[in-house]
């Protein structure tokens, strides 16, 4: 996965060690500290997948219940705390998408294409997340898993129970849709 350097920073903080030990003992204060520290990041991740505030909150809540319940299974030697929690959130988000069984063929996009071309380099993070959220569910899911989380197409295929070539195809279509709709520039290597 990408961004491991940044993730490791959290593990090296002495605060985290105390939180981990406290959570392993199921101390409410440590659980609260863990929640306050990581909830905004995890919420943003859930939102990227679900594109819906209510669903993202539901999934975040379920994820934290699961995190507290199975905290004894977390092994700090195998990976970072944030990584482990992110994985739980992503799994819960995918589970929610699967539960809803949304098979929206085409989702509504803004009626007119953007007039001005957008550059990926200059985009604000909020805008980028909104752009990703505007994609249909399968496109958004594959784009998130591949581009942001860094899963290979085979891994995505295993998770979503589809063929690897379908994952590639969906990603390609997602990119095309974004480029066409938002006139994204500086995306030469996308297509």
């Amino acid at each position: 996965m990408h961004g491991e350097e940044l993730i490791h920073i959290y593990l090296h903080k002495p605060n985290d060690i105390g939180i981990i030990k406290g959570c392993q003992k199921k101390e409410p204060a440590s659980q609260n500290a863990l929640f306050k520290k990581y909830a905004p990041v995890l919420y943003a991740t859930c939102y990227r997948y679900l594109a819906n505030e209510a669903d993202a909150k539901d999934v975040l809540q379920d994820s934290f219940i699961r995190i507290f319940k199975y905290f004894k299974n977390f092994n700090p030697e195998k990976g970072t705390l944030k990584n482990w929690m992110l994985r739980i959130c992503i799994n819960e988000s995918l589970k929610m998408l699967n539960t809803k069984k949304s098979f929206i063929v085409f989702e509504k996009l803004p009626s007119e294409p953007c007039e001005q071309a957008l550059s990926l380099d200059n985009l604000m993070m909020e805008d980028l997340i909104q752009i990703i959220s505007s994609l249909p569910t399968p496109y958004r899911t594959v784009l998130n898993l591949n581009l942001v989380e860094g899963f290979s197409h085979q891994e995505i295929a295993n998770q979503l129970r589809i063929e690897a070539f379908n994952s590639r195809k969906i990603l390609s279509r997602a990119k095309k849709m974004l480029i066409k709709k938002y006139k994204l520039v500086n995306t030469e290597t996308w297509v």
Partner: protein
Amino acid sequence: MGLNNLDKGKLNELQNFQMDFDQDSMWKEIEERKKKRSIFTMILWGIGVSLMLFTFTYFISPSNSTIKKENASNINDYVEARKYEDSYTETDSNFSKKEVENSLSNSVDDINNIQKTIIANISKGFHPSSKEKQKQIESQINKIATNPSTKLSHIKSPQPVVYGENLNIKSNIKSVKDKIFTTNQYSQISKIHSRESFVKLDFDRKHPILKTNLKTFHTKSKIFVSPSIGIGYSFQSFTPKNEKTPVNRNNFRQLETWSAGIQLDFKIKNQIIVGSGIEFLQHNEQLNTYTSETNNIASFNPDEIPSEYIGLDGFLTIRATNKFQNNYRLLNVPLSFSWLLRYKKLNLAPSASIIFNINQKAKGKTQDKSGLILNSTPFYNTTTGIAYRLGSKFSFTFNSKNSIFVNPQIEFGPNDITTNLNSFAQQRNLVLLNIGFSRAIK
């Protein structure tokens, strides 16, 4: 752009992007859920431990084969008793076996009284050694047996009930007590009781080998424990509030219902059983929602749209289907009244129950009148009130204390299980099939 098409810095920024939301309210909800979860876990542990204890006590209790072995010396009694049983139906044609069996338990007190008298007499040193005395006693018994109005309490000391061939009264009282009813006595006393009751019960207690013939009768047991699981199907009706006629809401599709529970039954009379316990019930439901939107074809990449979706006017109608899995979890305390009918090993017990709901949790989505999809929890009461069930428990008794049962039931739910927020009054009726195991514990 490197790193798989996204700039590394931008990727890190995206991965660590934080979005604000109301953390305090969510933390409160999480804490509430943790508490509820721990209570639920405790209940499950309680049920699990109860089942384990129950299973444990069941397996360590002496089996029939052990009892048989201990009483192997009574085989002659058994044979003679069987002869008596065979002759009984022929000679006492005025009473059907079923009638006699039904009156069986009424004689328990009388038998106990007789037994007390016998023991008292033995302890006083009564010994029917004289043949004349025996004849005298026999004639008394016959006199009593042929007179329906004779009460057992009229039998006065010295009494013939220690009448027996090999009875050694000089041995200690305990061994005498064990042999107090020999076959002949049994036969005689049975004759006395044949006009008002049937006297096998206490004999059976003293001679467990005969239980093979009597195992259908739990007349001595007063308390039973019955764990059970069930599966069923619920029927819901939706009536707009302030209206009386239900409407069709086909987008709510009912799925299976399942239950698990444990109940204690108390036999308060010979055939009347009152029971109560706790029951967990879950109704599963699927909500299908359909939305359609019309969009200008220009909004999409033409490569993405199959031609059959494009209308002649150049507009695209999009139909979206969402399926939500809802569930309703209920914690009930049933209070049941059963009327026990017996047919040898197979028993039938019609029952009526009042179901007190102590908690209901609705989880999932609901759709209001305007079509909005909303979280369903606030739209349902946390307790649904009282429901009523009618059923018939069919049980198969496989030894003197244990039986398995199947209990089909129909539940009539309360008129409305929703809060004021819901625009529809919702009634839920249920067909449930419980299967379980019953064990006499006292």
